[in-house]
């Protein structure tokens, strides 16, 4: 009887959980790279054709993403301890990376909401970034509910 109750409880708990696969760049095709502003405890993810993947950064903090097609790069921020108050939030931005280009994802928490904007990294100005002209609002399907 107890086993049955535990099994039902476990199934109920697992319902709605999704195992997000790790993004593995293909050997073919062009790529760009992305890195996240230092935000502490956060996960970087990639959404391609409304399917979500985890992004794993290398030692320098960069993760490879496919180029020349629309991608959504997002951040899931969790266990943010602010004066003892923990919270979590999620934000993303969608753009079309150019081949071999480098992108910076600026994740911010302000006014009780979080945002993530992607910029192209350049060496032509003091800020080292420029606006990404292909930036768009991400598809709702990229967000886990």
């Amino acid at each position, binding site marked *: 009887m107890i086993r049955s109750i535990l099994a039902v409880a476990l199934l109920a708990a697992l319902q709605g959980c999704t195992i997000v696969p790790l993004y593995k760049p293909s050997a073919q095709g062009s790529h760009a790279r992305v890195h996240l502003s230092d935000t502490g405890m956060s996960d970087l993810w990639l959404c391609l054709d409304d399917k979500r993947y985890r992004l794993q950064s290398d030692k320098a903090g960069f993760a490879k993403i496919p180029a020349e097609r629309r991608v959504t790069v997002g951040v899931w921020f969790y266990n943010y301890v602010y004066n003892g108050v923990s919270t979590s939030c999620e934000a993303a931005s969608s753009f079309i990376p150019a081949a071999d280009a480098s992108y910076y994802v600026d994740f911010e928490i302000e*006014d009780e909401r979080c945002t993530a904007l992607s910029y192209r990294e350049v060496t032509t100005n003091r800020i080292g970034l420029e606006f990404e002209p292909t930036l768009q609002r991400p598809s709702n399907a990229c967000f886990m509910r």
Partner: protein
Amino acid sequence: MINKWMITLLLGVMPLLSGCATGYQDLSNPILGWKGGYWDKKGPGELIKVGFAGNMFVEPDKVGSYLLYRCAEIAQREGREFFVLYESLPAALSDRRSTEKSVGTVASRPTAYVYILLLEDASGTVLSANEVITRLKPLVKPEVKS
């Protein structure tokens, strides 16, 4: 029902709570940092991101003053007299300069950040580190009269 014990308790707790307001201090301070404080980190590019996290007992206006004062201190720490203040990264990329930052809340606590770009000379809308420190010092670091 409010009785004299509750009033006594409230009168006793109020001064304690006012002493809990975030002061002008480093967020990484091992003793006082739990109450909040200032922080900074370099990047992207030559920008420096400066922030101040307050607790529920500090007024948002005060957090704004603390943040601006810290920006001026960082300019001096880096050996520059002038700096430009940007409210966000898009503002920095568009060179939309500000002279102060409106303070919002995170988890109901007043908190804010800005980006600063350090300059050697005053050109356009810039802030002088000396002027900011002179103007805000009485508020940020008031002299204790003995």
